[in-house]
């Protein structure tokens, strides 16, 4: 027992109220700096040219990591007497604490750390995790927040990266592929549909000129599914772009005599 008490004595510095206050002050200061960064950078990103927006947004989680390391570097020597033995002791104590009390938090926090470097998602990316699709608006230490097209904010723990596929639609770029789908009558010739829909995409005001436009068709039980694929120049216009392609594409096909298949409503009017 005496040996353990001695170990604990040597582990902790001979600190008084002043050291604790200093540590608390440093912690608070870095927390405030992080909050300021978290407040300022996303707003600044909105004012900057589009190509800089995602880069600036990504500085938020990175700055959190840097600030956390800097705070720990300053606080730990104030409270602990750092030797190899003490380091091992602290690690084992931490391991026990994390293993029992904070397992889920630690898993998510560690996954969050991995996510900073592995980048399955970044701020500003549009991702699908499970059934949820939206823009990553915040990368916290435990969880990320997605804003969906319906303006709902969904909080998802980082630990989902261990078990689920993360589908990233833009992967750090400022554009993503948008698809407008049509189901057409398979009994009529499809000649000319590719050109017709390509023109619809080429004349869209949302189109990114540097990216390809493609029309893909495949037969299904109900009809021929036609997918018009193109890229908008601004990622946040994706839904407007799809609407534009769908609206004008459908009208162009109807005007050209293509029959759009409409399926009977099996929901009994409940949907």
């Amino acid at each position: 027992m005496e040996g353990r008490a001695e170990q604990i004595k040597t582990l902790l510095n001979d600190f008084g109220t002043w050291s604790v206050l200093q540590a608390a002050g440093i912690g608070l200061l870095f927390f405030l700096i992080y909050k300021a960064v978290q407040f300022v950078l996303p707003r600044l990103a909105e004012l900057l040219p589009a190509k800089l927006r995602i880069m600036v947004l990504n500085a938020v989680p990175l700055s959190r990591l840097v600030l956390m390391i800097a705070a720990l570097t300053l606080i730990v020597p104030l409270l602990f007497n750092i030797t190899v033995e003490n380091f091992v002791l602290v690690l084992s104590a931490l391991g026990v604490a994390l293993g029992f009390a904070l397992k889920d938090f630690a898993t998510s926090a560690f996954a969050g750390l991995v996510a900073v470097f592995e980048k399955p998602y970044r701020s500003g990316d549009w991702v699908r995790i499970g059934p949820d699709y939206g823009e990553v608006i915040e990368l916290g230490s435990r969880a990320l927040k997605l804003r969906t097209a319906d303006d709902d904010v969904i909080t998802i723990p980082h630990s989902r990266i261990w078990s689920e596929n993360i589908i990233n639609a833009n992967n750090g770029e400022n554009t993503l592929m948008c698809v407008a789908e049509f189901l057409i009558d398979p009994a009529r010739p499809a000649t000319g549909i590719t050109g017709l829909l390509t023109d619809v995409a080429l004349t869209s005001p949302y189109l990114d000129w540097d990216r390809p436009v493609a029309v893909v068709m495949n037969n299904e039980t109900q009809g021929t599914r036609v997918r018009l694929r193109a890229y908008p120049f601004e990622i946040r216009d994706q839904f407007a772009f799809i609407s534009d392609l769908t609206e004008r594409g459908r009208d162009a096909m109807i005007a050209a005599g293509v029959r759009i298949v409409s399926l009977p409503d099996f929901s009994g009017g409940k949907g």
Partner: protein
Amino acid sequence: MQHLPDALVSIRDFAPPRTRATNRVRDAYLRLRKKLHIEGNQGDSALVPEDLERIRDPILGPETFERLESHVFDLLDKTFAAWIDEEETPHRFCACLHQESAPDDLFARWAAARGHDILADGKPDGRRRFAVLPSLDPLCARDPEGLKRLRQFCDKIEGQKTKLLFCGSAVQWGFLRRVSPLGLQVTDVRVIPPFDGRALADLLGIENASRQFRSRSSGADILKIKGNELEDDYLIDLAAGVRGCPWAALQMVNRSVSSQQDADDAGATWLARYDWPGLPPQHARVSRFLLHAVLIHGELAPQDLGSALPIPVPPGLVRALAGLGYLQLAEDGAVRIVPCMAAHIRRVLSEAGFPLGEV
């Protein structure tokens, strides 16, 4: 006039003049302040388009513009004269582009002055040996019907023997290249070269050799040379601000004369930095789409606004943009970009990620 550019440049080599690195930081900072609605540009003029109407006597008159035009016509002759005269050439189609801030009828006047045939309506005529299409406006309609007409035009010229010189704005060319085979058919694309600060100083000196121009923000003589460079940043910044378009630069100088009578000490003319207007804050997004559509179409009739834009244009927006100096309205309601604002519009659209072509 020794610093004026001496040749048209290939589209791949076009590099607009840039300000000094420190000024780029300053400009970015000022733009940010403006977006944050913090008043900036202390010491500079707060000239807005309404004020500009009050400037009755431009300091740069027709002589300067005539000399500039004559120089550009010479560059066009130098580049295309031999090609025009060639009887057999594999390069049947060439293009010469200008920035959107150049005069709309520049190429039409060049072609008329040199006696070349002009396809003003954009309809190919196989009976001619050589013709100039002085504007890309007739080919640029961003709708499926417009694309159909464009492709018919491309098919038609392919089957004829007429040598064609396509002339027009760089944004329009970027659009045409994307949506039609013209990018493959035209083998050589040249651009009117950008004029840097020294070239602008030469132009300023044409009518004002004895006049002293001073920058209102620095107080320095803007034409003074130190080493081999302009000592003051005014003309360097101006060249960068208008992306090297000399017509726009000269018009901006005319617009930037600051309190000429009051501050005219020691015979100097004081020039302020032009304060580019912002877009209407509540309608910035639709304004950008509108300006982009007008850049592509060249001229947009009121009845075409609906089909050219993906979102409804709020009533009064066109007039608001005209009031801010972005658009000019014809009597029939058709809208065009105010030429000297084109570089600023490009900057606004480029920052928002709009596609603008190669130049």
